[in-house]
């Protein structure tokens, strides 16, 4: 039996022997890495550095080699072999991945959680080695609401609560009113959002104190900018997409020119344009709020991308749809509004969601016109003399916030994509 061990491949006849040898090798391989990473103990100090460095990999490789036996009947063993140990190359990749996880997760976790400081209210309260989440705690309201007065922040909360409730309530609309949903979401939402932002967040009437847009900021500004840019760039994008497919040369080429121009320049130069060039183009003495200018710039920029998304939907529709609509005697507008667009837009909902995602990720750039959303507020907070050296915590926090938003949105759009693709 021992002789077989060295001459033949691991096989099912001496399963127990091979598996126990393999597990012992694997155990020592992982133990070595684990102790080294957590307690800084080198089990193999008596070897030279070079051997000691590669020993866990060699041990693990032998271990995985010994347990690579096909169809043992043991579900656990078979799953391991199939998923992470199918070839020698795969076993090496598995080992390297595990070693990297074991090596790098303890310091990361201890910085993020175990050694982190959360109690207190000044920088001096951060005595541990880990992250200083006190910084986030103290500045949290600024990161969310910018310089919006503390006493008035309920207005932002209420506005967003109403907005999200009305979006959420779409799911509970009874079946027979579903037909009105699209017109509601194209006309109703923008109106609600505009009224909320104009009267509730901006204020100035109904006894609410007026808050200038320069004080707006933080995450709420990210939402305001991206939401407004989305609802404006959507209709413009549809018109541009129709224009690009028009048979009239002037309309076609001016649409192409518009789309390709905005797609060819970076957003930051567009914002530069809105900051320094735009005031020159307006009649002397007119003043335009910088938030409005930023929203116009982002809208122009994103509408070109939206147009390309919508065009994808228009192109995907079979020609028969156009012919059928024409044969019913519908004109250009009725054909597009009643037959073509409802189908084309449904096709590109995932694309629209992706454009929105890109839009949200682009909003931090509004620092160019002097507006501070969450990344900008962190830049402001980290240069505060009392809170120097807190850049890492700030950007990790902002990154986490954006990640949660963007990841859930992208998952939602993927689900939508799956759902819609099966329906057709």
């Amino acid at each position, binding site marked *: 039996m021992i002789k077989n061990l060295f001459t033949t491949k691991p096989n099912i006849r001496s399963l127990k022997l091979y598996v126990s040898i393999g597990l012992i090798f694997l155990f020592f391989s992982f133990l070595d890495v684990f102790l080294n990473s957590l307690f800084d103990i080198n089990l193999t100090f008596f070897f030279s550095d070079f051997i000691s460095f590669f020993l866990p990999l060699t041990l693990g490789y032998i271990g995985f080699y010994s347990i690579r036996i096909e169809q043992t009947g043991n579900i656990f063993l078979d799953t391991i072999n199939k998923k992470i140990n199918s070839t020698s190359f795969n076993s090496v990749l598995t080992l390297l991945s595990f070693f990297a996880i074991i090596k790098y997760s303890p310091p990361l976790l201890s910085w993020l959680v175990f050694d982190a400081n959360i109690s207190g209210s000044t920088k001096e309260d951060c005595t541990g080695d880990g992250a200083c989440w006190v910084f986030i705690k103290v500045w949290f309201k600024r990161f969310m609401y910018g310089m919006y007065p503390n006493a008035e922040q309920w207005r932002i909360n209420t506005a967003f609560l109403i907005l999200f409730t009305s979006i959420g309530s779409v799911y509970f609309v009874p079946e027979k009113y579903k037909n009105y949903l699209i017109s509601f979401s194209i006309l109703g939402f923008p109106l609600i959002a505009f009224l909320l932002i104009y009267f509730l967040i901006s204020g100035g009437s109904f006894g609410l104190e007026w808050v200038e847009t320069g004080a707006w900021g933080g995450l709420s500004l990210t939402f305001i900018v991206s939401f407004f840019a989305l609802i404006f760039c959507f209709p413009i994008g549809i018109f541009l997409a129709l224009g690009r497919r028009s048979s009239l040369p002037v309309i076609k080429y001016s649409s192409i020119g518009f789309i390709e121009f905005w797609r060819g320049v970076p957003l930051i130069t567009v914002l530069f344009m809105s900051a320094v060039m735009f005031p*020159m183009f307006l009649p002397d003495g007119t003043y335009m709020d910088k938030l409005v200018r930023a929203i116009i710039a982002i809208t122009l920029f994103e509408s070109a991308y939206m147009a390309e998304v919508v065009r994808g939907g228009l192109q995907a529709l079979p020609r028969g749809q156009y012919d059928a609509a024409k044969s019913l005697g519908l004109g250009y507008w009725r054909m597009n509004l009643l037959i073509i667009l409802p189908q084309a837009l449904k096709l590109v909902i995932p694309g629209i969601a992706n454009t929105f995602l890109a839009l949200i*990720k682009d909003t931090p750039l509004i620092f160019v016109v002097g507006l501070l959303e969450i990344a900008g507020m962190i830049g402001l907070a980290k240069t505060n003399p009392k809170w120097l050296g807190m850049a890492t915590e700030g950007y990790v926090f902002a990154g986490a916030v954006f990640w949660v938003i963007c990841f859930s949105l992208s998952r939602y759009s993927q689900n939508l994509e799956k759902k819609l693709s099966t329906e057709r």
Partner: protein
Amino acid sequence: MFFKKNKSYLSQIITILLIVSIFGFFTFNAQVNMDNRGIDFGFSFLSQEASFDIQFSLIEYSGSDSYFRAYLVGLLNTLLVSVIGIFFCTIIGVIVGIARLSPNYIVEKIATFWVEFFRNIPLLLQLFFWYYAALRALPLPIDAINFNDISYLSVKGWYVPEFIWTNSSIFYSSIIAGVVSIFFIYRFAKKQREDAGKQIPALSLSLLAIITLPSIAFLVGGVSLSFDYPVLTQMSKTIYNFKGGVSIPPELMALALALSLYTSTFIAENVRAGIMGVGKGQKEAAASIGLTTSQVLKLVVLPQALRIIIPPTTNQYLNLTKNSSLAAAIAYPDLVLVFAGTAMMQTGRAIEIVSITMLTYLTISLLISGLMNWYNKKVAIKEK
């Protein structure tokens, strides 16, 4: 019919009138505004003395040079970081994209995590993280991270040896000659394959060409290469810094890191989609006519996968180039910072400078998308 024709003319005329009146309105206002402020429109300022310094430049530049030269410095810096970013994002993207298709569960999950992690955080935040958090945590020059006494990584930047060539022009021309001969080898091999049915080992021949020609330049042409290593020197009592070598500033490192990590996720998705897009039947059919595994990959899978991968990937390269304008946020002297930032502050010529900047990016975009369209036409499946 007549009415319809007129109607279509009418709508086009209205469109033209609308566009002309919008442009006219803007031009008129701009004229009035500039008259009021005593500025005149023109590009003559480009030849004036710029009189500001740029921290990092690929070509000789000093404050006494013209604004046009400053523009060139900015443009070259933009192109430099774009090329570095494209290089690394392609390598990382291809590895991660293949890893996402790995049969190994853990490798696949790590690759998925990579994509979902870097894709869903705004690029600007990643840039800030690398610049303000990660690279600021590097040691001071005196305790710099030492790579075999050849290069040093510190908070002031990454110091690498400088290449000092003698007779560099001969070396460069030998490389160009190598590339040209590879082109001819491939053309010859293709002709032989199509006309005479002979297989010529084009890959080994071209490797030979690219290695032999520069080596001849070294041996015969009098080309030699030496290195100027960075050395830690004491500047004053407490300040140490490196002298010699080439310093890669932290701004460039942060920008290249952020751009290549962010864009690599998109390229990984393209690579994955491309490989998945080649049907299983294709591989099986290729194997059944007796091609070896490497031949299947080289002749059947890759040409088809590349056809799917390359157009969206070129788009990502374009995005990367445009995103490199975020450099302005961390003060890397790219086109936007140097020209649309500093130069505009000094001259106050908003319209001219922003237009030039936008047109530059537009030209790059149109050039690249033009090239892509040409390539697409070339590789498109020729249907009968």
